[in-house]
């Protein structure tokens, strides 16, 4: 993948992610989230993983975001309902403190990354081919990671039960 393509997708992804939390209107947030997901899919293509990229678009940008949109529209909440005075004003000191901390952390990360020089990742020329095809992904999922797969089903069951408990009308 050409470096400029990577930077293009990465920039779109980061900017639209920041946009998601910066919006007052939930509808725009959802749309920006779709943008973020699609640019991530672009990054996956660049990593020689077309299957993951397609899954990303079908599952996240498609199915899940449609659900998000439905919920936002059904709740009929085009704007966040913030009653005036309901939000506590954040003191300037706290803002400054948080700002300084985040800048410091960003600087530290940049410094660490700039020191990397050589690529520290394991170089495996066959890695891309190994996980590119659906067949191989299936084999890996059900052979090497079969146990994780089963644990995931329990995880989803717990999430489902939890969602019902918290959302059902009569207790």
């Amino acid at each position, binding site marked *: 993948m050409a470096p400029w393509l990577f930077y293009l997708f990465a920039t779109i992804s980061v900017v639209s992610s920041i946009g998601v939390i910066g919006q007052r209107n939930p509808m725009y947030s959802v749309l920006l989230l779709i943008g973020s997901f699609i640019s991530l899919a672009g990054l996956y293509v660049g990593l020689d993983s077309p299957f993951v990229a397609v899954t990303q678009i079908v599952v996240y940008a498609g199915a899940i975001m449609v659900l998000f949109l439905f919920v936002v529209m059904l709740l009929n909440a085009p704007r966040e309902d913030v009653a005036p005075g309901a939000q506590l004003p954040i003191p300037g000191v706290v803002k400054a403190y948080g700002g300084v901390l985040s800048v410091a952390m960003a600087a530290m990360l940049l410094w660490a990354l700039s020191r990397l020089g050589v690529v520290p990742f394991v170089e495996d020329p066959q890695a891309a081919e190994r996980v590119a095809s659906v067949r191989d992904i299936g084999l890996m999922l059900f052979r090497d990671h079969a*146990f994780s797969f089963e644990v995931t089903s*329990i995880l989803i069951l717990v999430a489902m039960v*939890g969602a019902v408990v918290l959302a059902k009308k009569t207790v």
Partner: protein
Amino acid sequence: MMTDLQAIMPILIVTLTAIVTMVAESFQPRGERVPLGGLGLIGLTGAAVASVLLWGRDLTGFGVMRADNFALFINVTLCAIGVLTILFSTSVVERERIPSGEYFALTLFGISGMMLMAGASDLLVIFLALEVMSLSVYVLTGIRRSSEAGAEAAFKYFLLGAFSSAFFLYGIAFTYGVVGSTRLEQVAATLASQVSGPSVMTILALALLLVGFAFKVSAVPFHMWTPDAYEGAPTLVTGFMSTGVKAAAFAAFIRVFLSAFEPLHAEWAPIVSALAVATMVLGTTVGVAQSNVKRMLAYSSIAHGGYLLVGLIAANSVGKAGMLFYLAAYGVTNVAAFGVMALLSTDDHPHDNVRDFAGLWHRRPALAAAMTVFLLSLGGLPPTAGFVAKWYVFAAAVQEGYYGLAIIGMLTSVISVYFYLRIVVLMYMSEDVAVDPAPRLPRGAVAGLALATLAIFYLGVLPTRVINLAVQSVQGLF
């Protein structure tokens, strides 16, 4: 295949019991009440028996689950915590109109996640187990739908928890980037073979994993969620999550940092030392200022996390065995202390202020006596379990030359005794001020209190047997 299944038998039993509990509630005839708590008790006893039967066999399941003595020791501890929670819960759940099927099912799912976490030898499985456990506890925190504080606590816990999971996952990704595998044994092998010292990427992975674990064991400065979540959750859920979650998180913490990242001990020991000092000092000093007992116990549990971190740093055989003993002793004690509070609370009166305990001795002598035992054990006074646990952890720190940590630990322990004894003094020395007809004690809860008291004295007076088992469980593992 058979040994694979045997290795995960305790987890399998608990998970199946959770599903049965959930289904049983929906099939119960109208107007009748199936004793769902009883089902849970049977399942947990079964899991504990299975763990005992597996002792010493060191089975491996599916390549990613270890049924070594370490995991089994934690399993039995978790079963004890679960049994006590359920014994106290049966009456409280009914009184507070908590949906009982879901409550017990989620408790059991939580325990199965914790057991998975204690036994997993693959970072991916540890992450999934962490999520199973956390999701159950998030929902349990907010299960009283009518309570605003509960909703706030659940939301805060969920948001910050999701955030820390992201850190943890990021750490796993970097580890995979460096090693090319998520299996702990391969991580250890690769890191040990890095002759030129750890790369920046390795340190980054280490730091991110550390943040994830520090959040789950609520080490300072990643403790912000703890007081709010503990205060807002139903009292018994607080007891459950302050012990079970901590035991499981520490089990995985020990396994990852003392097996996979052991070659980097010199890199992470100073960071963890700083965390331990901050945790012990802040936990006790802020705890002194609390007037809400649930908040006070939240800070006390933060401080206990600090003492456990001391054991993690000292990490000789005494320290590791001491940590396991500590987790068991602290788990039983803390669940029981929260149990007493839950039994005393009524619908319109949560009984969580320090003043509420005034004169308890005159009203409920048995409960006051039991609470005294639990508080003394939390404070680490002999002849209770808490004393022996602290003694082993600090002894390990001294043996390894971490005198500073040991001294800070002892000083903060002394300070913490103040806020435990304050309640004890109020219970005995002051006249009866609060006159609220607290409900009668149900039989299950009495059994729970008796079991916990016995266990605390057993561990405190005759600790040798359990300590030997703890030593066995860490031998040859790390």
